[in-house]
C-alpha cells in the first residue's frame, strides 16, 4: 500500500515536472516558429515592395501576366495569388530548411481614405498581404500598403541602375538557425 502510494506520488511529480519542461520547450518552439515566419514574410514582402505599383506600359492590367514568372514580376499585383510550398527564392530555388512551410500573397485595391476597406474598383492604394503558414498549421500574416504616388514610382530623368531589393540568408552557429529576410533600399535619390 505504502509503496503504491509512493509510486503514485513520484509519478505525479514526474508528470508535473516533465509537463513543465514540455511547456517550456513548446514555448521556445513557438518563438522560433513565429520569428522564422516573420522574417520569411519580410523577405517576400521586401521583394514585393520594391516593385512598381502596376505594370509598366500604356495599358496595365491587374494580376500576373500569363507566362511570366516571379523573377519577371516587377509590379506588386504580379504577386497576387502567388503560393509556394516550400518557399523559394526569387529565382525559384527552394529555400533549405523550410519543408512544410507555405507562403502566399494576396494583393487588392483598398480605399485611400480607409485602407482597411477592400475596394471593388481600382484605386491609388494597394494592400499587400503575405501569409506564411508553418508546418504546425499556424498562419502568420504581414500586411503592407503601396501607393501609386510613392517614392518607388519616381522615375529618374536619366537611365540609372538601382539596387531595389536585397535578399539576406544568414545561418547562425547552431543548426537550423538560418534566417531568410530581405530589404528594399529606397535609394531613388542617388545614382548607383
Amino acid at each position, binding site marked *: 500500500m505504502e509503496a503504491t502510494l509512493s509510486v503514485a506520488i513520484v509519478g505525479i511529480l514526474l508528470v508535473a515536472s516533465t509537463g513543465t519542461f514540455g511547456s517550456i520547450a513548446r514555448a521556445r518552439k513557438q518563438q522560433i516558429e513565429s520569428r522564422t515566419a516573420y*522574417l520569411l514574410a519580410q523577405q517576400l514582402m521586401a521583394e514585393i515592395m520594391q516593385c512598381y505599383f502596376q505594370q509598366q506600359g500604356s495599358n496595365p492590367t491587374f494580376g500576373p501576366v500569363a507566362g511570366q514568372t516571379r523573377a519577371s514580376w516587377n509590379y506588386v499585383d504580379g504577386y497576387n495569388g502567388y503560393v509556394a510550398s516550400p518557399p523559394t527564392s526569387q529565382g525559384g530555388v527552394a529555400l533549405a530548411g523550410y519543408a512544410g512551410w507555405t507562403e502566399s500573397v494576396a494583393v487588392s485595391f483598398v480605399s485611400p481614405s480607409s485602407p482597411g476597406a477592400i475596394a471593388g474598383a481600382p484605386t491609388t492604394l494597394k494592400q499587400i498581404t503575405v501569409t506564411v503558414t508553418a508546418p504546425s498549421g499556424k498562419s502568420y500574416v504581414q500586411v503592407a500598403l503601396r501607393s501609386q504616388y510613392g517614392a518607388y514610382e519616381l522615375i529618374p530623368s*536619366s537611365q540609372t541602375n538601382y539596387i531595389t*531589393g536585397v*535578399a539576406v*540568408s*544568414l545561418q547562425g552557429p547552431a543548426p537550423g538557425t538560418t*534566417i531568410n529576410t530581405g530589404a528594399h533600399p529606397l535609394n531613388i535619390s542617388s545614382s*548607383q
Partner: protein
Amino acid sequence: MKSFRRRSSHLRRRAFTLVEMVMSLVILSVILPVCGSIVMMAGRATTDGATRNLAQMQAADAASQMTDDLNVALNFTQRTALAATFTVPDRLSAGSPQVVSYSWSGNPGDPLLRQFNGGASTALLNGVQNLNLAFTPRLMGPAPAATEQALFSHTTAFGSTHGNNLDNNNWASQYFVPNLPIGTSSYTLTRVRLLLKSGPQSAVMSVSLRFPDALFRPTGAIVAQATVYESALSSQYEWIDVRFTGLSGQNPLQGLCIVLTNATGSTNIGAVQIDQSLFSILSNAYWSSTANAGQNWSIGASTTTAMCSVYGTVP
C-alpha cells in the same frame, strides 16, 4: 498482561516488515533511475531548445540590423554574395553620407563583420555558418539615345580619285555591308555621307537605298529614298550628309546599295567622287554603274569605291 499483549500486537502490525522494506527499495531503485533519465532528457531538450532559440534570436538580430541599414542604402560600391558596402544618409551631422560595410569571410565559424564609416570592424554575429546576399538591380529611367556610329566608311583614297558624273542616264551604285559589333541583332541606318559636287544645272539628285542582286547590283526594291538639291552643293567636292528616317530594325547581315539617280525631270545632277585602284579596295564594297537609267548595271567591282560613309545606331 492481556492488554500489553494486545498493544504489542497492535504495534507490530503498524511497522514495515523487512520484506516490505526490501520490496520498496527494489521498486524505488527501478523507478528513480527512470525518473532521473526522463528528467535529464527533458532538461536536455529544453536546454537544446533554449540554445537554438538563442542562436536564432542572435542571427535574427544581426539580420535585422543588416536589413535596417540596407533599407536606407543610397549607393552601393560593393555587392557580392558575402559582402555589401554602401552609403547611408548622414548619421553624424557630417554633411555627407557615411559608409556601412557588411562582410563574411566565407569560412564557417568566422564572424559576420560590420564596419561603419571606415572604423574598426566589429563582429555582429559570431560562428556564422553561411551568408548569402542576393541583389535585385533595376534599370530605371528613359533609355539614352543610341550614339550614332560609322557602319561603313571609305574616306581616304586607296588608289586615285575621280569624278563620276551623274545625269538622267548615268547612275551609280555603291554596295556595302555594315560593319557592326559581334552579336548585333539589328541596327538603325540614319545617314549616308557622300563626296558630291554640283553640275552645270540646278537639278535634283535622288539617293536611295536598295537591295542588291547576287552580283552586287541594285535591284528595283527601294528600302528608303532621299533627295539632294544640287543648288545646295558646291562646285568643289564636299561631304554631303543625306539623312534617312524610319530605318530601324535593319538586318545586320544584309548588304545594301546606295544608288544615285536623277529625280524626275532632272538631267545633269552633279558628280560623286570615287576611288579607283588596280586592286580590291574594301571587302564587301562593290561599285556598279549604268549608262541607260538602270536598264543594265555593270557587275559590282571591288576595285572602285565611292568616297562615302554610312552611319547608324546600334541598340
